[in-house]
């Protein structure tokens, strides 16, 4: 049985009890649920879905971003940032109430065992989806730098939510904190340092990073991991993923999350790919970036 089928069979709704909720930035919420089996099985990059009750006018399930996982306590924190009805419904859940969380869904990020230095790159609220990667990497003894772009100080993910060990560098459009300008400007400073990079943000930002990554090998002379020998898998193939320098968390509307409706499909370099199953994490070369959404 393929890894994909196994993953899908493991995806069952878990009854999760809300423990706490806080609005850490205007319109951005973290909710923490007690969900031991999810906490044990979720891996960074995977997502969950919730199903708003009938009557909310929401016929589809809603993808929910995992912020962090506390395996010891059996707790999962999710990030809510949009004002759509399903998210609004989820935000009306009160502590001690239960919600069915479906997951783990999708394929996780793949961190090469030889990678010691990880670069995380985010623009806007999507940063919440990188936090879990940082946690796992630190546990495994890796070094982590997080680059964040935001419009202004009011939208900057609070450093208090990050482990101390993460090097955190911020860029704002209005220059109210950190570097003035785009987070992409910061990336070139770290591209030599980083063994692998993981990015989350709007499609246009991911496309810019993809172009940047394509020039990296040339700029640095040779890819760091490629050097270490062995026959390299074909670029753009799924086997290449663990060896690629840049992986992206692709935002896309997800419907069935089961792989049947083809509503989440984007064009990949190998043909159409289902973000709900083959994604949401992609190695940059697996996607075509002319039409990034």
């Amino acid at each position, binding site marked *: 049985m393929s890894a994909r*089928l196994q993953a*899908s*069979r493991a*995806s069952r709704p878990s009854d999760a009890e809300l423990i706490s909720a806080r609005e850490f930035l205007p319109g951005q919420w973290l909710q923490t649920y007690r969900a031991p089996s999810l906490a044990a099985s979720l891996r960074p990059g995977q997502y969950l879905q919730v*199903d708003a009750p*009938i009557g909310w*006018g*929401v*016929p*589809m*399930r809603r993808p929910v971003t995992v912020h962090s996982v506390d395996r010891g306590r059996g707790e999962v924190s999710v990030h809510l940032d949009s004002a*759509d009805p399903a998210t609004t419904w989820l935000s009306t859940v009160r502590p001690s109430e239960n919600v069915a969380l479906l997951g783990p869904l999708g394929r996780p990020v793949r961190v090469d065992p030889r990678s010691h230095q990880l670069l995380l790159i985010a623009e806007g609220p999507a940063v919440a989806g990188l936090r879990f990667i940082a946690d796992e990497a630190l546990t495994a003894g890796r070094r982590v730098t997080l680059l964040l772009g935001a419009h202004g100080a009011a939208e900057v993910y609070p450093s208090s939510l990050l482990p101390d060990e993460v090097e955190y560098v911020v860029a704002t459009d209005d220059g109210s904190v950190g570097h003035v300008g785009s987070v992409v400007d910061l990336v070139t400073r770290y591209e030599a340092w980083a063994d692998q990079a993981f990015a989350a943000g709007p499609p246009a930002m991911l496309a810019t990073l993809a172009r940047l990554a394509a020039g990296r090998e040339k700029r640095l002379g040779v890819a760091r991991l490629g050097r270490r020998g062995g026959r390299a898998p074909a670029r753009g193939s799924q086997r290449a993923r663990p060896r690629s320098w840049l992986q992206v968390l692709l935002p*896309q*509307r997800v*419907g*069935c999350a*089961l*792989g*049947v*409706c*083809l*509503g*989440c*499909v*984007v*064009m990949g370099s190998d*043909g*159409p790919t289902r973000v709900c199953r083959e994604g949401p994490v992609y190695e940059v070369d697996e996607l075509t970036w002319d*039409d990034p*959404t």
Partner: protein
Amino acid sequence: MIDFLLNPVMAAAGCFGYGVEAEGQVDLSRLGAIVTRGTTLQPRSGAPAPRMVEAPSGLLHAIGHQNPGIAQVLERFAPRWATWTVPVILNLAASSAEDFASMAGRADVPGVAALEIDLASPDLARRGRPISLDPAAAARVTAAVRQATDLPVIVKLSPAAGDVRALTRAVVEAGANALTCGGGMPASGATLGSSTGTLSGPAIRPIAIRMVEQAHDAVSVPIIGCGGVATVADVLAMLAAGAAAVQIGTALLADPTLAGRLADELRLLRPPV
């Protein structure tokens, strides 16, 4: 004619793939039947993203018939279907009577219980107007398919025609054994990657029920109601309107086990005699 159904609740086209994707997670034997994804003569890679966005109580989508083409489908999936108790109805999409007939001619293989002919596709002969807006065009396609196969032929019509009575009479005269009444409503593609989308889900249920009422009024073949069915009350409303069976589409995306559960609930309410 549709006595091959195990019960009156089936999965609608495009919302359950080819059945095989869900095999491990859903008890397929509880479904009345499975209608496959729309299948075309040649493989298609489908529409640009975004393909799907929510609308109030509905789903707006433009999938563009992504599928591996009929040859692949029959080769890869039909042998698996032949091992199932649940009947599989192959949904076909094309833009000309010839393409429909050519597919229908090959589809009579073990594992395929019936064909569903989706007439919402644009008609190449009529500058892309949906075939199902024109009774004569719809009859032409139906007759061509009828000639090409001995399988039961279910013709799927969309509520876009406003008044479907003339249309249903035309396709029944041309040989349709049953009708699927519902499908989605053509809608704006402004928020999608395509210029036009299709609206499905509870939002269109009252429109789909009226379509079933009109068809029931006009013809006497079995009618399969489709559009916004999500609860057993919706199933009963479709049956009350004159449907012999129902299909569940959008609601299956949120819960792929729903069709089986509705079939069970229906059995409790209306025990078979």
